[in-house]
């Protein structure tokens, strides 16, 4: 599990890549929280474009990010979600909680 982050106009984009499971979830959550705390964005985009596998740990990461952004009265958007992670997110009912989009910040 690796990630890169981009900030543009108060929009923080976290580019996730590799495999998301329990082994890497806590570290990823801490990294996302720390970026949100530093940049205080209005929107956090979790970009799943590079994710090759995800289990329910990914649901926990999205919920954790949602809570952190709610504290800032901001929102969360999920972008470029491949089919396997999408199936897991749907099983977790995440589409009722966050917006999905194809947006990506220019690098």
């Amino acid at each position, binding site marked *: 599990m690796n990630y890169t982050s981009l900030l543009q106009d108060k929009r923080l984009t976290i580019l996730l890549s590799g495999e998301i499971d*329990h*082994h890497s979830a806590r570290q990823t959550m801490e990294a996302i929280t720390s970026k949100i705390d530093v940049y205080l964005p209005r929107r956090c985009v979790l970009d799943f474009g590079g994710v090759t596998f995800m289990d329910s740990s990914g649901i*926990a990461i999205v919920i954790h990010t949602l809570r952190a952004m709610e504290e800032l009265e901001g929102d969360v958007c999920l972008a470029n979600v491949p089919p396997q992670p999408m199936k897991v997110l749907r099983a977790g009912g995440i589409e009722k909680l966050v917006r999905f989009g194809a947006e990506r910040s220019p690098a």
Partner: protein
Amino acid sequence: MKAENESVLQFPSLSANEAFARQVSAAFAAQMDPTLEELGDVKTAVSEAVTNAIVHAYPDRIGPVHLRLRRLAGNVLEITVKDRGCGIADVAKAREPMFTTGGAERSGMGITIMESFMNSFSIRSVPGKGTTVRMRKKLTGRGEAACKP
């Protein structure tokens, strides 16, 4: 039911073995010619079952996790994940969506996902003795899927 092929392995409850367990399961399932979606479902279900054993069965020690993979008649894959950990006091409660006794990195959706991604799911647990999860999934096979109208 007699297995046409079978593999049994045991590994310690280290979180690094979550990826190992799902890769082994995907490699075993490959002989059954699964579709990409079916392979994703199998990997996800194995990841959930093995993670539960690692996180919940052995909360404060490292213990053995058994993974058995069987190919049954009709292109059915059977996966059994067994531990000798603390067991589950209330299995009905554990099966409820969003229920977890794990930390912030757990969503409480593991069992719900195993139930919905596999064709059958059963769980047996004895407090103090351990837990066994058994799942089956019929794999369509890419050849068979291609013949569908």
